[in-house]
């Protein structure tokens, strides 16, 4: 279960703690969801703990990036308040970049198309929503979508056939239904707090 701690150093870039730059409130507790999901799927597919840990981190980063961009503010009235609008754009990009670096360092470039498919679907749907002034994309939409893509990555690593893919897709959906609400309710206010909650989860 120590894999859960992987996200904490990933959220620190040089001397900058990404969490500390965000002024908006997020339900940070959910950020361990994808690590847990990848570990669960990894056990079913019988891939190594290292692979599962890496997939979990990649999904966490891309999820976090999507979510932060999803919540970019539309308007600020005062120049002094601009950082509340600007920081999320940059932090989302920063996490996106971090994802690409880790993908490369983990030697998992071959799975990039699966993640890109997630990003295309998510961004396209979001753009459509904004154009039509509707609201079909919400947290549940992209968590479920990314859960399915995470299952696809794990299936690819396992070299599984269609049956394996179906099994993992179903497992991902079930895991989401069982775990999401539990994690989403948890609040984390800082990087240190996140670390503490992750440790508590491990114990």
């Amino acid at each position: 279960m120590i894999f859960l701690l992987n996200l904490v150093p990933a959220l620190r870039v040089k001397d900058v703690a990404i969490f500390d730059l965000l002024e908006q409130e997020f339900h940070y507790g959910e950020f361990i969801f994808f690590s847990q999901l990848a570990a669960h799927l990894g056990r079913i597919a019988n891939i190594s703990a290292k692979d599962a840990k890496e997939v979990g981190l990649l999904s966490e980063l891309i999820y976090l990036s999507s979510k932060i961009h999803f919540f970019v503010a539309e308007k600020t009235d005062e120049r002094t308040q601009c950082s509340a609008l600007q920081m999320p754009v940059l932090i989302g990009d920063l996490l996106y970049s971090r994802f690409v670096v880790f993908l490369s360092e983990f030697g998992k470039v071959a799975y990039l198309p699966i993640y890109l498919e997630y990003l295309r679907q998510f961004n396209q749907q979001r753009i459509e929503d904004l154009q039509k002034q509707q609201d079909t994309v919400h947290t549940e939409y992209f968590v479920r979508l990314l859960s399915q893509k995470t299952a696809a990555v794990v299936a690819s690593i396992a070299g599984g056939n269609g049956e394996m893919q179906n099994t993992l897709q179903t497992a991902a959906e079930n895991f989401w239904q069982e775990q999401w609400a539990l994690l989403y309710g948890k609040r984390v206010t800082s990087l240190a707090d996140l670390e503490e909650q992750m440790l508590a989860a491990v114990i």
Partner: protein
Amino acid sequence: MFKMFEVHTMKKKLAEVEAYLEQALDFEHPVIRQYALDTLHAGGKRVRPTLSILTAGILENEDNIVPLAAAMELIHMCSLIHDDIVDQADTRRGRPTIQAQQGNQFAVHIGDYILTKALEIIQQQPNSQRLLQIMGNLSLEMCLGEVEQLRTVFDVGQTVEDYNYRIDRKTALLMATSCQAAAVVSNASEKEIDIFYKIGYNLGMDFQIRDDILDMEQDSRKLGKPAGSDLAHGIMTLPTILVLQKDWAGKEELLGFIQNRFTGGQAEVERAISMIIEQGGLQEAAVYAEGYLKQAEVYIDQLPEHPMRKLFLDGVNYLRGRAY
């Protein structure tokens, strides 16, 4: 067989990049396609693809440089779309920005969507694992530069080193990477990759300093954005920093304008620019820019003999005389 890779070949390759970009951005989704192609058609100097093509030309690689050069331009496009949100810019290259037309959220997702295309292209290139690592780190540093810029708006205590940190990440690294990545896909030696990186880096530093000079020197019609817009937004560029480092009568007035965030509006911004010009800020900044160009020339001299090397030097001279 040795292939001559001269000016007409360069132009031909750039035309191929343009065609590749048109195709890459011809997305199925009509709204995304419209905004992506509008951004492409807004123009731009295509400096980054040019650097990639020049590098590959010297390394005798004509085979796979067009997609990579296009990907470099796409990364640049994404960064501009997101920068326009961060800067709350209304216009870019004389046209309304995406965020000005459709809002911040719309623009951020268009930028992200285009970035997926850039990554898809890069993933299909030789040495893609290394390329993605380079691109990821580049993007990370670019973000950190922007974060630093946000943290330091209207901070009159900034030094030349602080400024270098920001423009290194804002501009120079992408130009350095345009050369470096082209060298990597061309299977260059590590020494060659390093030389190309340094050429791109020094050209990039010069490019941004001159951009910052032009921001104060030119009228808004030529710039495609309001003159002095960086200063108005509290971004301390080299001419301002150099002038503020000196003691002179009237310095307190300039400090007051900046620290009070130009409460008097555009008239105060224009007065501040006049003061910076009168105090020699632009000329002194130009000396710094020239230093980077000279450094670039030193590294260009280390490249192997090749007709394309002359084009690199022509590029240096173009930057030296750049008026917009």
